[in-house]
């Protein structure tokens, strides 16, 4: 049997991450992949799809509801267990670290599931990295803006050149063991309080 014959259900409220995982599964040759963003009516969907593997993000508060459903034979035809092999501690830890969880039909061979789980873990990690980099870029931009405003205040109130204003901010930050952006923010806040608008 080829790996492509496994039926996989991805439950993720984050549409971007879900599509990244879906793309990864399709690239790996899985043709029966269903993505669900909303757990409303999930019991019927699971009964229709009859998934061999269910991948779900750990942030989803509905995990307790889903696990209970997996244990009820009415909703799901076959018993579903988390991961493949409890002895595979390393991959369980990697999954929880990445923020992903998987349930699989009992009796499936480990070698058929492992690549799917590994793929989900690496895509989850890639998504987190991407989100983090985006956040860093955003805060970097914010920092630059506040430093510019602080420089402006110093230039105006103390008649400094732009370079001298920046040097003063940097020296103060070093002396106080704080970030330049923090010093700049304090200055902008203080100036606002004192009515010394830019």
């Amino acid at each position, binding site marked *: 049997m080829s790996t492509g014959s496994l039926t996989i259900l991805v439950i993720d409220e984050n549409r971007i991450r879900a599509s990244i995982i879906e793309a990864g599964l399709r690239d790996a040759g899985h043709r029966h992949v269903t993505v669900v963003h909303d757990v409303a009516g999930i019991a019927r969907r699971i009964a229709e799809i009859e998934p061999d593997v269910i991948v779900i993000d*750990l942030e989803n508060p509905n995990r*307790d509801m889903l696990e*209970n459903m997996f244990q009820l034979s009415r909703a799901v035809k076959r018993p579903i267990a*988390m991961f493949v092999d409890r002895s595979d501690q390393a991959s369980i830890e990697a999954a929880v670290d990445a923020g992903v969880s998987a349930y699989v039909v009992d009796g499936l061979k480990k070698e058929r599931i492992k690549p799917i789980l590994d793929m989900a873990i690496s895509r989850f990690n890639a998504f987190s990295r991407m989100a983090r980099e985006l956040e860093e870029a955003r805060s970097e931009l914010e920092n630059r803006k506040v430093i510019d405003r602080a420089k402006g205040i110093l230039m105006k109130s103390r008649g400094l050149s732009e370079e001298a204003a920046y040097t003063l901010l940097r020296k103060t930050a070093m002396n106080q063991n704080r970030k330049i952006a923090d010093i700049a923010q304090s200055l902008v806040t203080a100036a606002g309080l004192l009515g010394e608008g830019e």
Partner: protein
Amino acid sequence: MSMAHEITAGFMPLFDSAVLVAAGEMGFAAREGIELKLQRETSWANIRDRIAIGHFDVAHMLGPMPLACSLGLTPLASDTIVPFSLGLGGNCITVSNAVWDGMAAHGAVADLDPARAGTALGALVRERAASGREPLRFAVVHPHSGHNYELRYWLAACGIDPDRDIEIVIVPPPFMADALSAGRIDGYCVGEPWNSASVAAGTGRIVTVKALLWRNSPEKVLGVRKAWAEEHPDALAALLRALYHSARWCQDPANRGELAALMARPGFLGQPEAIQMPALTGRLQLGGGVERSVEDFFLPFDKAANFPWKSHALWFYTQMVRWGQLPHTPQNLAIARDCYRPDLYRSALKPLGVALPGANAKVEGALKVATPVGSAGASLVLGPDGFFDGQIFDPDRIDAYIAGQKNA
């Protein structure tokens, strides 16, 4: 400043995480040399997983959950012990306005009396069945929860078979009120503030409370990974002392305002202070303008609330058996009994010279009034601890109790 111990604790955003939260935030942990790292979670499954793989050393858990973990009833099960209880009571059963109207037509009045409310609900359930309507759907927070077992206990004692006559589903606590107002469920059993939330929204009625179904009954506990407890006995003992001081602070009426403000913070419950007060005062709005005060509604400290009674664990075990979650065998019984650890509670708290129960288990439902009991050191008051149907649970007569349980 570096602390002697560093402990990571998981919790769910529920009011009964207060003892754990206050231990970290009000300085009780620091005074015992503990840096307590509190981490909020989104599901009980996450708490279980993170305890199992070691992300958390300890966690706020549903009372039956460590049993379910130790008995292998859940995925990623790991040996988990209970050396401390985080409180007694705190839950309510809430129904939709439509169900309440139906119950009222069958004699229910807004007085929280479990027997009267249950009888009325039973009549409504039979009336609906006779006219071919769908069974009512109730929600609880987890299959291995006090909520599930107390809802089922109440229904069965009132002649309603929880598996045949109604449907029980799982809904996360913060979604209960929404599910009720959207008509996806007809009623639920959950801790505060999620009952008062439906009453405040005008979409539900509180029909009875845990404290009246089984007075002074167990709810959340401190679950501890057994392997961690064995490797870090000093850290665990220090944590139990910190929790003891925190629980006493939480119980003191003088601290209610401060505690409500603490729990209202976005990192904890993130719900307005006013909606935390019913849990603290026991003064509940039932809906329709009716207010009722419930004695011992939620006890974080009084009545030996923090003692991990083996009889509590064993009662949960009998309900797991009753509802088909596991077979009654001597091995399973022994695992359940060993899960709650009064010995660890006693050895940690002994240096404090405070009241400690002398027994590990008690006959549940035997105390009709508050009763002073013999204990090491200072005096201790227990009970009343009655079940609403007058039943007694004697942990020394488990076989007879299990044999006597009926589904309706």
